[in-house]
């Protein structure tokens, strides 16, 4: 297929027309290397959108553009338009720090700060000049990430003393605490055991009542369990030999897994992909 044609956009068929993030013809470069090409992708409010696809197709790259974390990578460049509630995120007048306060991120590897559990959760609020009741915010965030009961008696202990699964939920709590509107998750469960994974997935069902979530995952079952919408990316080699990623198909999760329109999607979700 020609990747520059606009893939089937499902958003017109959605009942919920409230689009939080609009991705219009976005290409992403690392220096001269084009990692992602011509992506159109609209994220509806209070949905979970899963990004799936083979390794190296640019899922993380795209995700990092939604909160301008790619700004930290020297040479990274975005073309096209990413609009958050109608505002162009890459407008020169936009402060990337402010963007990241509204669009939080949870990373593949749990990365709590070497501080107490309490301070980990309070960190974002403190730097945002939060004036309210900090104890209450910390409790609410930890409850929100289903961690409160496990840590309520040891809030003063180091965040690093928790298990991997608990650490990841701590990182989710930390993100909820800044009260963002969108949460980006890059393979949040890839280092977790099945039980912790299920916990985090349950959590996502809870969280989407309040937040909009974009999640990258390699786990098909996970995508089909948690996501309302799924975007399948693929990578294609150019004449020069380098590979670029592009969006193959974006639709309701049910359609992607049961009635994909593209052969590549069909191959990938049924495991026939190399």
């Amino acid at each position, binding site marked *: 297929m020609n990747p520059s044609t606009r893939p089937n956009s499902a958003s017109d068929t959605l009942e919920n027309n409230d689009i939080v993030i609009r991705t219009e013809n976005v290409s992403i470069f690392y220096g001269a290397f084009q990692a992602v090409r011509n992506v159109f992708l609209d994220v509806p409010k209070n949905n979970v959108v899963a990004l799936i696809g083979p390794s190296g197709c640019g899922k993380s790259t795209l995700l990092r553009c939604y909160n301008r974390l790619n700004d930290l990578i020297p040479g990274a460049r975005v073309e096209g338009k990413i609009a958050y509630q109608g505002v162009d995120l890459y407008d020169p007048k936009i402060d990337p720090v402010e963007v990241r306060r509204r669009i939080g991120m949870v990373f593949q590897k749990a990365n709590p700060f070497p501080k107490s559990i309490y301070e980990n959760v309070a960190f974002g609020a403190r730097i945002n000049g939060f004036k309210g009741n900090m104890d209450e915010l910390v409790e609410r965030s930890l409850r929100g990430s289903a961690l409160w009961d496990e840590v309520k008696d040891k809030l003063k202990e180091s965040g690093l003393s928790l298990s991997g699964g608990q650490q990841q939920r701590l990182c989710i709590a930390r993100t909820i605490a*800044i009260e963002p509107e969108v949460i980006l998750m890059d393979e949040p469960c890839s280092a977790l055991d099945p039980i912790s994974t299920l916990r985090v997935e349950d959590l996502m069902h809870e969280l989407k009542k309040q937040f909009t979530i974009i999640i990258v995952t390699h786990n098909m079952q996970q995508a089909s369990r948690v996501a309302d919408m799924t975007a399948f990316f693929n990578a294609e080699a150019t004449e020069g030999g380098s590979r670029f990623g592009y969006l193959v198909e974006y639709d309701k999760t049910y359609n992607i897994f049961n009635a994909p329109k593209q052969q590549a999607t069909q191959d990938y979700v049924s495991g026939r992909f190399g």
Partner: protein
Amino acid sequence: MTSLTTAPAETLIDSSTKFQPERQINQIFRWLTIALAVCVGLVLLWITYSLLLIALPAIRTFGLGFLTNSTWNPVEEIYGVFPQIYGTILSSFLALLFAVPLGVGVAVFLTENFLPPKILTPIAFIMELLAAIPSVVYGLWGIFVFLPAIRPILQGINRAFGWIPFFSTTPGGRHLFGASLVLAIMILPTIVAISRDTMSSLPPQLRQGSYGLGATRWETITRVLVPAGLSGIIGSVMLALGRALGETMALAMLVGNANNANISWFSPASTIASLIANQFGEASGLQKSSLFYGALILMVLTLLVNILAQMVVSRFQQVE
């Protein structure tokens, strides 16, 4: 000779007695290493033992009063190193006061992509060169170039803030403050090198996590990275302190070698190391013994600082 393809198991045992150069070399190295370790241990013991032995008469005569007595009188044979202890600790403290913020600042600057690599590499290289300059060169430069250069400034400070005890004397040609500044330059590379290693070995996820929560670069550095690397930074400061306490040549040339513990930083002073460097030539008898007593005190002081540094640094490595 039962099989040509697989040798019988007994040959395994045989092979150990066969000549195998690699095994031989391993053995030689093992013994060499053990012998060297033993030698180093013996030398250390020897030094400590002779220090104690020679210092013993002075320890017997002056006891702990040696630490608080300010007299150094070879005629009446009364010795005490209070001014030297005071000078040693104060000069090291002042040196840290200047070198720590500067050193940590430079380390952060070098690791946090403030500058393009083209500029960073030379700066890092210059920092390392700073460590390679012999201390006598620092002393010479200090006495003929640096101290005269800063003298007008210090005189200005003395005129304006002379009512503060620390600045209450008119700065002459040599003084504790100037010596401390040069000392600060000398220990800067230690602080920069170790703090920089610490900062750059912090997991990148820490940075991302902080930025991802909407922290600015400044907030990320001050609230996440520096606290995370704190034990490593403290370790670097301890090592620098160890060096500052024992630094001899530059201080002997710059500190003024006055046997008094003046509250004013602008007056000449003395340190244990510079005292020893200045007196060992003509010392004998109880004076020599007292120098060894002083050396012992210095050794204990630096040993304590080093042990503390090791503890802090190893605690940091455990966190990693």
